């Protein structure tokens, strides 16, 4: 899923300074699962915003709403009849949701309330970690199911670097060395011969470096 964290309140309060009535808009997908921008977080931020503005003596009306999916024009359309009554939309969706609103409602200011972080998985309750960098050409089949792009601090394809120590990455004791994990899993799978093969320089065109990406499914596109 896409993970995110709420922006600091100081930044949020500053960004809504000019407004007196906002729509605080959550999303029922990834940001709900990572507790950054679902119904619950919308309610919490709504309360915090009202309190924060009252404390300044500048009360603000905060309407709370959570869409099924903010990155989908179909659901964003729901706002069309009511949106004009607000000064701005404060979106708690990931950057994709924020932009879908911006695209559909060109004259409505949209403020991001969260910092979109990474594509990750839940390690344990309340802990999420990066797992995929969306490189567009997945190599997990050669690396024991552990991603060298997203999980090695130097995205090394023929690792590990000299900094790998006791299973940890040189950058921090809190970060596992991806190549230690890869090696351990290859051993587990009886696939250590995969390690000896030189992995070729990556074609980063399929990643962001080829310019903004797009998927068109001709069997589906109307």
């Amino acid at each position, binding site marked *: 899923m896409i993970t995110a964290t709420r922006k*600091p*309140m*100081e930044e949020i*309060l500053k960004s809504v300074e000019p407004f007196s009535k906002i729509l605080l808009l959550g999303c029922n997908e990834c940001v709900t699962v990572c507790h950054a921008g679902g119904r*619950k977080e919308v*309610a*919490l931020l709504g*309360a*915090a915003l*009202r*309190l*924060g503005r*009252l*404390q*300044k*003596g*500048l*009360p603000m009306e905060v309407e709370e709403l959570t869409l099924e999916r903010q990155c989908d024009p179909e659901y964003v359309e729901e706002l069309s009849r009511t949106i004009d009554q607000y000064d701005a939309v404060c979106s708690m969706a990931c950057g994709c949701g924020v932009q879908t609103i911006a695209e559909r409602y060109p004259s409505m200011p949209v403020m991001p309330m969260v910092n979109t972080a990474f594509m990750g998985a839940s390690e344990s309750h309340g802990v999420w970690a990066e797992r995929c960098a969306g490189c567009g050409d997945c190599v997990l089949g050669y690396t024991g199911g552990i991603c060298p792009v997203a999980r090695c601090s130097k995205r090394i394809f023929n690792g590990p670097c000299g900094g790998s120590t006791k299973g940890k990455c040189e950058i921090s004791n809190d970060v596992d060395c991806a190549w230690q994990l890869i090696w351990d899993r290859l051993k587990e799978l009886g696939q250590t011969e995969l390690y000896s093969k030189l992995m070729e320089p990556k074609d980063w065109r399929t990643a962001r470096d080829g310019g903004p990406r797009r998927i068109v499914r001709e069997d589906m596109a109307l």
Partner: protein
Amino acid sequence: MSDFEPVVVVFACDYCAYTAADVAGRMNLEYPAGIRIVRVPCTGKVDSLYVLRALEKGADGVLVAGCLDGDCHFKNGNLRAAARVKALKRLLDEINIGSGRVEMVQMSAGQGAVFAETARNFVATVQELGPNPIKHAASQAA
């Protein structure tokens, strides 16, 4: 300031603090009049939103009162509540309401005296902090 009687909402766990408050009452131990007790099945049930709503509605302070470490009837509801209170304190500082208006406290069911004393101390702290700033701002705005 001395005539300021803070309104303090206490989310009291049924298995400890709520009973302790009862014991305090039966022992005729005094605690301040502004205390409003809300009985909850476990402090683990105290959503961060309850606390914010209480403050939004004008409470001057909020106490979350749960069981002693290791005594939670639901294993670790009290620890979860403590973690939430910690995060709430940070949030309240960020929006200038002040982290001092929320506290997590722990006690056992028999500790009526502890309940009364904790309530008195917290009310005194809130008295120092003054009224919930949103009331002041709201009256100014009016």
